[in-house]
């Protein structure tokens, strides 16, 4: 059975400069489509991919990633904004890798486009009043 899932990979600093995703193709016969990647030396790397292949291979590939130290997060998670706490400062705008936050130049209010959000969670801790919440 062929499965296809969207997942977020968090690479710890020590793994950022190593070829890992390559093994998914070579050793596990999986296809992937990179939707977003943010790899900075000396910082945690982040990659959003759609991973496709036989269920058995998919499971082995995920096991391999986990054992290497990559943290895997399903895109089934939702990041929501608590509008009670948001002060519309804008600290999230430059932190978000997919530009899901936008400053309206007239109202100076910050909009959040959940459709662009990849649930990476970077905004959760970057938000000074802690208005961004992760829901499962």
């Amino acid at each position, binding site marked *: 059975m062929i499965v296809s899932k969207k997942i977020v990979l968090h690479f710890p600093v020590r793994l950022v400069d190593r070829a890992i995703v390559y093994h998914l193709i070579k050793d596990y016969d999986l296809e992937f489509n990179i939707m977003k990647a943010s790899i900075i030396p000396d910082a945690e790397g982040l990659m959003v991919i759609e991973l496709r292949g036989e269920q058995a291979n998919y499971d082995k590939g995920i096991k391999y990633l986990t054992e290497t130290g990559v943290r895997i997060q399903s895109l089934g998670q939702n990041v929501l904004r608590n509008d009670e706490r948001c002060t519309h400062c804008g600290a999230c*705008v430059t932190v978000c890798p997919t530009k899901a936050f936008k400053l309206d130049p007239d109202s100076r209010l910050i909009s959040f486009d959940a459709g662009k959000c990849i649930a990476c969670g970077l905004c959760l801790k970057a938000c000074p009043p802690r208005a961004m919440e992760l829901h499962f």
Partner: protein
Amino acid sequence: MSKTIEEINDRIRRGEAVVVNAEEIIAIAKEKGIKKAAQEVDVVTTGTFGPMCSSAAYFNIGHSNPRIKLGGGRAYLNDVNAYAGLAATDLLIGANALPDDDPRNRIYPGEFNYGGGHVIEELVAGKDIRLSVTAYGTDCYPRKKLETLINIKDINEAVLFNPRNVYQNYNAAINVSGKVIYTYMGILKPNMGNINYSTSGQLSPLLNDPYYKTIGIGTKVFLGGGIGFVAWQGTQHNPSAPRNEKGVPTRGSGTLALIGDLKQMRPEWLRGTSMMGYGCTLTVGVGVPIPILSEEILEYTTVTDADIIAPVIDYSSDYPNMVANIIAEVSYADLKSGKIEIGGKQIPTASLSSYSRALIIADTLKEWIESGRFLLTEPVESLPGIESGLKTKPLKERPVTE
């Protein structure tokens, strides 16, 4: 043309005062000219809503039976360290205070989810706060332990007292190093990946009265959703900072110490705030009315974001090491556009201060004045201006030999 504060107050009492916010006055003065605008407008309201670390609250909790002496003991509010160096039942909590067991930056970068600023917000919101005290016991204050819930409506006094708020201009922060840094100016990406700034610019109180001609000690203000007063010049008040031809400082300069009754403030204007890798603070809402006493004062209030210049400072090396280096000078109009160009590179910008909330503060103050419930005050003393020669000094470290 000149008016007095008493004349303006008479107009406020009669419901005739013309009040506009510091954004509206720009277009009004452009359309009507300074002279006519100064005749017609009585008050310009300002506002700002940003993280202000030097903020604190003090309380008197009332005497327990038997009595306990907090002074010289240890006290915690919701596990956050409070200052117990005052009298028996007085307590102070600072916005940056943390629980003893917070890992801080031992797990880097620390999250700083709960601290003094959050205690102040919850107290103002009317939530019960857990007070834990250990004391040494005396003949007149024999008790050594106290564990209780306190609520703002029950305690004798609750006062917000902020030694330094409302900075007149500030740095814009950048990171020239190759790794992410976590600062009080937010998360700064490597290799000049972003710039963070914090101001309400053309709405900001002291940028609309650059020489402190109307704002002084005793000035009544909007503070945390209630009414407060300017208690003194703020710490690090630095009137001698360089200024542009309109008198607007081009570096951090004047500051205010503010005081007010916490019991009439509101949690949406005193927001507990977490800066990842840096610590906890309090986002404070402040609005100051500027009485239009003359054309000169009106002209100061027409300052625009394009007129206000901020220095871009590197927070990876220059700032921590006290290196007086400025990477660029940029206007708030540029910063607010969402990106600026430095050295051929487009750099995204973000604010830590909320302009939209600052506007709500200025408009709330406007409404208070128009409805007659807020009268203006004459300062009882001026803030030190340029003539004082006052200048912020760095710490002079001296060897300790004994």
